């Protein structure tokens, strides 16, 4: 095991990996931790005592180990620090895994117990665990009866474990579950044991009150309501913030009811016994399906009214972003970007530029780039924050301000409701994927047939994030509107194929794609990798992932060329210079996806203080490490740029025409934006 790895496995802060200890039914990781003690006296003085205190057999005296304090024997002896040896279970039999709950170090004990309770379902049933705990508990107390000595530490740890289990996972003991049966069968025979008896009583009490609470709370599910209701909404008139709040209310209920352990790769892959995950998925699909259906369904609807509906959904997504409901946000974005809707370029054309820009930013949140990095980062920064507070990038800040400005709830959220805490609802899919991968990547059993507890620890890291977010989701203060729920659940969903057929009936295929594709292609008279990289962005095969970093747009620059002209204005920052202005190194400026050569030249000259020059006397050239790329006089500069250079390193030069050199790297193309 290399140093790097051992570091990451360190169970507690300030500890370092020492080695591994193997037993027949367990593998332990050994760590050394330096513990410092404060001197009880008020005099701040560094005094050291070495090696004369030992707080138990698990501890090693500090004598000789990296001591840097001066040896001042004149002072009163006081223990300043010592090195403690910690044992962390890596793998073991079920018995060992449970016994390991008892640990000298309280941090390790708490972590081990949390990991165990969150993940045990992947290697044992509740009954097996219950039996084993009682067995170990009985064993440790029987010892007391027969030998007069007890492993009180172990028996107490077992009782603690049972208590925490009942508190944190009461669902395991509900009436009719295996855990319930087992609890009564296993514990009742030992009812004379005071501890177990009180535990049983406590459980029964807890379960009763839980049942009562459940009855009191209404069942929150879209399908629980009858579609017949008194008050009804219609999509064009319902206020977007109300819509978003109601979706969030529903998602919040689902998320709070989510039993995070159901997400574990080993359990979810079987797809049964995971009802709370399934409910989340169902709600997600129901929403996406309705997005698609509302846009496509009405055969008599005009293109304008479809565009209105689409616009409405983007507005609703904006509100969802403010509510930090990433689940419904992703569902709507997926619906809008699903093929049957996304291909309707005539509808998208009618959407205002601003709105499209917002939409592309929203969809950017779920970019696949770098294994969904954008999403992960956002959750990290905002996950448990009360408000959408993008602190990291100024770009994101600007974007959010934009969303805020155009959102109708702006005044409500800021600043009037500034004190109202908000939660976060994540898109569960990313967690499910990560857990599926961990499950595939790490073996369940190691060293023969020992439970790989390291794997469970890794899984727990992700479950713990979900738990944390669940905690934050409690912060939502939303009221349910049953009329909304009834209305919404009555909206129709479409299956894939019929959605596509409807989409074709609205806008037939060949007029859109095949036609555009031709005009969209480049008619280059020479070729180089530059052109290739342009094709990377514009062509229909490649995925433009690179461009999405640069341009802040995914899903729109990438594929459907018929749409790329309508979807949002994206920009890229370039550095411009000119030989006519030798004293200026370069200036930075933005190039938008509708900027053509003359405009870029004019802007660049202005930036460089050459505003009096006639742009027609200049040629635009991109400076590349080994060559140059000349832009034709009316190219769409944004798309023609060679983006194989790193972000922020795109260099353009405004070259007076008389400076021209013979370089045949120039390209020309039909502009897509003007077509």
């Amino acid at each position: 095991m290399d140093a790097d790895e051992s570091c990451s496995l360190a169970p507690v802060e300030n500890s370092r990996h020492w080695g591994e200890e193997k037993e027949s039914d367990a593998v332990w990781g050994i760590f050394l931790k330096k513990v410092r003690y404060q001197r009880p006296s008020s005099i701040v003085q560094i005094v050291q005592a070495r090696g004369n205190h030992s707080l138990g057999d698990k501890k090693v005296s500090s004598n000789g180990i990296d001591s840097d304090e001066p040896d001042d024997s004149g002072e009163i002896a006081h223990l300043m620090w010592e090195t403690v040896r910690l044992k962390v279970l890596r793998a073991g039999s079920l018995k060992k895994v449970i016994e390991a709950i008892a640990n000298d170090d309280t941090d390790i004990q708490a972590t081990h117990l949390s990991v165990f309770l969150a993940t045990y379902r992947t290697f044992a049933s509740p009954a097996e665990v219950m039996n084993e705990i009682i067995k170990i508990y009985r064993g440790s107390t029987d010892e007391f009866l027969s030998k007069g000595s007890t492993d009180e530490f172990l028996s107490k740890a077992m009782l603690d474990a049972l208590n925490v289990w009942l508190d944190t996972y009461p669902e395991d003991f509900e009436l009719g579950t295996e855990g319930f049966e087992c609890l009564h069968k296993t514990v009742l025979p030992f009812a004379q044991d005071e501890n177990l008896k009180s535990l049983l009583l406590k459980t029964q009490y807890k379960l009763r009150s839980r049942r009562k609470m459940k009855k009191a709370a209404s069942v929150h599910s879209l399908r629980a309501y009858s579609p017949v209701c008194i008050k009804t909404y219609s999509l064009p008139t319902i206020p977007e913030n109300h819509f978003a709040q109601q979706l969030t209310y529903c998602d919040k209920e689902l998320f709070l009811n989510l039993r995070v352990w159901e997400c574990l790769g080993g359990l979810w892959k079987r797809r049964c016994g995971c009802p709370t995950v399934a409910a989340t998925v169902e709600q997600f699909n129901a929403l996406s399906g309705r997005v698609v259906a509302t846009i496509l369904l009405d055969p008599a609807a005009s293109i304008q009214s479809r565009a209105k509906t689409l616009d409405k959904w983007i507005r609703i997504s904006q509100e969802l972003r403010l509510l930090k409901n990433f689940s419904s946000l992703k569902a709507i974005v997926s619906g809008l970007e699903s093929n049957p809707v996304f291909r309707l370029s005539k509808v998208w054309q009618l959407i205002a530029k601003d709105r499209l820009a917002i939409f592309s930013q929203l969809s950017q949140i779920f970019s696949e780039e770098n294994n969904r990095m954008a999403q992960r980062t956002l959750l990290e920064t905002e996950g448990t924050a009360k408000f959408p507070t993008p602190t990291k990038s100024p770009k994101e800040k600007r974007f959010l301000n934009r969303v805020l400005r155009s959102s109708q709830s702006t005044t409500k959220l800021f600043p009037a409701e500034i004190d109202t805490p908000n939660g976060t609802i994540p898109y569960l899919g990313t967690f499910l994927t990560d857990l599926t991968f961990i499950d595939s990547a790490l073996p369940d059993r190691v060293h023969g047939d020992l439970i790989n507890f390291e794997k469970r620890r890794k899984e727990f890291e992700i479950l713990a994030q979900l738990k944390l977010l669940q905690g934050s989701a409690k912060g939502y203060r939303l009221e349910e509107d049953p009329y909304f729920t009834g209305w919404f659940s009555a909206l129709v969903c479409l299956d894939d194929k019929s959605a596509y057929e409807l989409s074709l009936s609205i806008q037939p295929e060949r007029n859109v794609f095949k036609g555009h594709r031709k005009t969209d292609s480049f008619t280059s008279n020479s070729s180089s990798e530059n052109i290739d990289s342009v094709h990377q962005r514009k062509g229909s095969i490649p995925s433009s992932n690179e461009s999405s970093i640069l341009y802040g747009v995914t899903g729109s620059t990438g594929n459907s060329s018929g749409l790329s002209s309508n979807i949002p204005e994206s920009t890229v920052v370039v550095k411009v210079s000119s030989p006519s202005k030798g004293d200026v190194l370069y200036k930075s400026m933005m190039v938008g996806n509708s900027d053509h050569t003359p405009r870029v030249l004019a802007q660049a000259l202005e930036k460089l203080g050459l505003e009096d020059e006639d742009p027609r006397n200049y040629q635009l050239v991109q400076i590349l490490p080994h060559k140059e790329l000349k832009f034709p006089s009316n190219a769409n500069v944004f798309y023609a740029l060679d983006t194989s250079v790193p972000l922020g390193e795109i260099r353009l030069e405004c070259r007076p025409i008389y400076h021209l050199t013979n370089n045949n790297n120039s390209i020309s193309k039909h502009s897509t934006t003007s077509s």
Partner: protein
Amino acid sequence: MPVLPVRKGGVSLLIEIFLLRSGGSDRQTLVRSTGDRFYFRILGSGGVGKSALTVQFVQGIFVEKYDPTIEDSYRKQVEVDGQQCMLEILDTAGTEQFTAMRDLYMKNGQGFVLVYSITAQSTFNDLQDLREQILRVKDMDKVPMVLVGNKCDLEDERVVGKDQGSNLAHQFGCTFLETSAKAKINVNDIFYDLVKQINEISPQGKPKGNHRKRICALL
């Protein structure tokens, strides 16, 4: 920012700096070299072993620690026919039932791996629809694709015959492989084959129309 252009097989390699999240909340700067990029998508029903194939291909199955947020878990540099390529494999294993996001996922893919398990007939039957969806979304008659019958180490549990697989591949007009992520059979071949297919249609991932011109430029 360092730019180190290296000529290799007509492909320029660039060293790019990317921000990556490592393990916890720290951001880390990593240096990555890239050649030509290929974006692959792995599709198939839940439980057919998609993620196992990806993990096996990208980093080998015996990984001591696995972190989905580090780039080594989804990106791999390989050399196919003397060409350096960076393969980015997006595998949304675990979210098969979020059907609504499939379109977008397919849209950005260049090559597709359709996976079924030879031990489950239903996973085989699901692929017909998936393929149709890909063709619709990509708006093409044919896309680079490999049909994969996974779990071929479980011969005792086989319910989908090899001939069934090859017939379907014939119908799809794509390559067919029986693989085992567990026993490391044919795993790399899936991805190498996809790179070759893409190069056949359009060398180095470019649309076909450019092929001829490209050669001119090189000459």
